[in-house]
């Protein structure tokens, strides 16, 4: 008998549903569960309502860390995006050096966070690190373990070293997709190098740059490993970003309730800012496809 509808589809969706449940929904709901309850161990829970959220949003500690995150992400974006574009522009478009450059650019991306952290941690040490020793020899006082500015600079350099390549590769992909005829047309018009960049390369790259900005923002806003490996959030609280504070609160102090509330706020902030970024940048991109005829 032919049934136009049956429930077979559920069986096909089930594996994906189970996977997503295990990997995302269940952990998230656990966090939600913790964020509205209080526990003193022994698996005893007491309803706390929005108490933890109120506490987190009113705590100076949270906003300090939050501001550090904002400052860090902003600095990273301001450095990495222009630097990545400049490097991409100076890479060869064809020839035997292309694969060489691409591999060179991909190398930092292949190194795990904590290894990058360790590399720079050792590199920057004044007693045995090449960089630290050299700076010391030059008479520049540099010590990330005691000086907050040095610690910040080190973390920023780490991130730039680690992730500028991503911006380079994305920009490069955008650049090589520009047909040669555009450059010819610009030459015939007598356009300067800057004008070629401003009116051809940049508009043609804006989509990949949008992705680069989004990825770099999300990633840098969730910075954890580098400051953790370098100084564990110090000196003092100078590199205690939200993620580090969160771990301290949850695992160090075992304040599960406030930590859960904080991680939810943290998650929502990343989501919200990414969404704002995306909407603003797609609107700036005047070529909204729904407006006109596409072919």
């Amino acid at each position, binding site marked *: 008998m032919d049934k136009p509808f049956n429930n077979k589809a559920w069986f096909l969706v089930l594996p994906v549903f189970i996977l997503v449940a295990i990997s995302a929904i269940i952990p998230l709901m656990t966090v939600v569960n913790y964020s509205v309850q209080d526990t003193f161990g022994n698996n005893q829970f007491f309803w706390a309502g929005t108490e933890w959220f109120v506490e987190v949003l009113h705590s100076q500690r949270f906003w300090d860390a939050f501001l550090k995150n904002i400052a860090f992400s902003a600095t990273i974006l301001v450095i990495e995006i222009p630097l990545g574009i400049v490097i991409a522009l100076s890479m060869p478009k064809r020839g035997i050096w292309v694969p060489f450059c691409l591999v060179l650019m991909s190398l930092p991306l292949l190194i795990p966070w904590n290894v990058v952290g360790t590399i720079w941690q050792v590199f920057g040490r004044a007693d045995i690190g090449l960089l630290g020793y050299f700076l010391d020899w030059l008479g520049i006082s540099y010590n990330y373990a005691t000086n907050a500015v040095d610690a910040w600079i080190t973390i920023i350099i780490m991130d730039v070293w680690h992730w500028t390549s991503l911006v380079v590769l994305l920009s490069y992909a955008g650049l090589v997709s520009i*047909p040669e*005829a*555009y450059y*010819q*047309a610009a*030459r*015939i*018009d*007598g*356009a300067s190098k800057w004008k070629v960049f401003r*009116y*051809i390369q*940049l*508009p*043609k790259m804006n989509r990949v740059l949008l992705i680069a900005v989004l990825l770099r923002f999300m990633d840098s806003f969730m910075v954890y490993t580098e400051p953790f490996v370098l100084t564990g959030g110090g000196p003092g609280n100078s590199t205690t970003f939200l993620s580090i504070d969160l771990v301290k609160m949850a695992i160090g102090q075992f304040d599960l309730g406030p930590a859960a509330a904080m991680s939810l706020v943290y998650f929502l902030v990343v989501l919200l800012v990414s969404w704002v970024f995306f909407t603003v940048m797609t609107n700036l991109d*005047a*070529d909204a*496809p729904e*407006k*006109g*005829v*596409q*072919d």
Partner: protein
Amino acid sequence: MFELKNISKKVGDGYHIRDVSLRLEKGSLNVLLGPTLSGKTTLMRLMAGLDKPTEGDIIFNGESVLGVPVQKRNIAMVYQQFINYPAMTVYENIASPMRISGLSKSDIDKKVRSAAELMKLSEFLDRTPLNLSGGQQQRTALARALVKGAELVLLDEPLANLDYKLREELRVELPRLFAETGAVLVYATTEPHEALLLGGNTATLSEGRITQFGKSISVHNNPVDLSTAQIFSDPPMNMLNVKKSNGEIEFEGEKASLPQELVSLPDGNYKVGVRPHHIQLVKPSEDTLTVTAKIATTEITGSESFIHIEKSDYQWVALTHGVHRVDIGETVPVYLNPSDFFFFDGHDKLVASPARLQGENN
């Protein structure tokens, strides 16, 4: 006047352009006709000054322009792809070359609006190119070339990426629009019928050489050699090797008598070219060469049918009007009239073309 003097472009060991000489008059329309990779784009790049020839000279208004950089040459170029500044509006795109040359604002505005009028872009001036259809994008690029007042306008297969109807429309408008500017217009295409429809002059290009240059219709009717005939025929001209003796030709055992004007050809072997529409499936009243051939495939376009036929090692295409129902694999007689034949000698040079076309030489 724009003149190429024996220019060549050597890349590595091979020539991309070999010993090309051309004289193009002001206000003339010149078609570069050749298959893909025949060197049309390379030649255009040399004309524009985007590349330098390895040999030869380029003369513009009596002076060599080889040393003049491309942005100072006052040329315009339109490509097969629709090339516009992506972040600028249509208005700004059309205005861009004039902005660089420093015209006054009101002059620019006037020119942009009149070009937009001609190209039917008036209502789209505030849009960016990606919000336009392909045809409108290409018209923007053409408008930009038009307002520039360039002395040399290079159009590199400008209509190839457009749909059929737009192509027809623009093909009619283009020569007229640019003729008014008095520029030397060069138009590259792979399509023989486009060269004929545009009129003007045609230079046929084969493997980097100009095989012939002259009025489009006369190049078509009297190609100097085999490769020109092949380039200027779509579908390709059908070839057969014949033996001429006395007043007769012989092909694969079949014989036909020649028309009066061809009897005087020296006896011997010739390559013969026949245009697809001259292979007839219905026996005509005249005396013809009758060949039995096998039908390989047929393509029916509605008003016309292309019938691919095979005869020993020869593969021909017959173009017939109307829809013909023939069975694939069937053997049918086809009729070739010797007065439609183009005769080529052993060096592929034309020795005789159909008599009725010779009057149209000039």
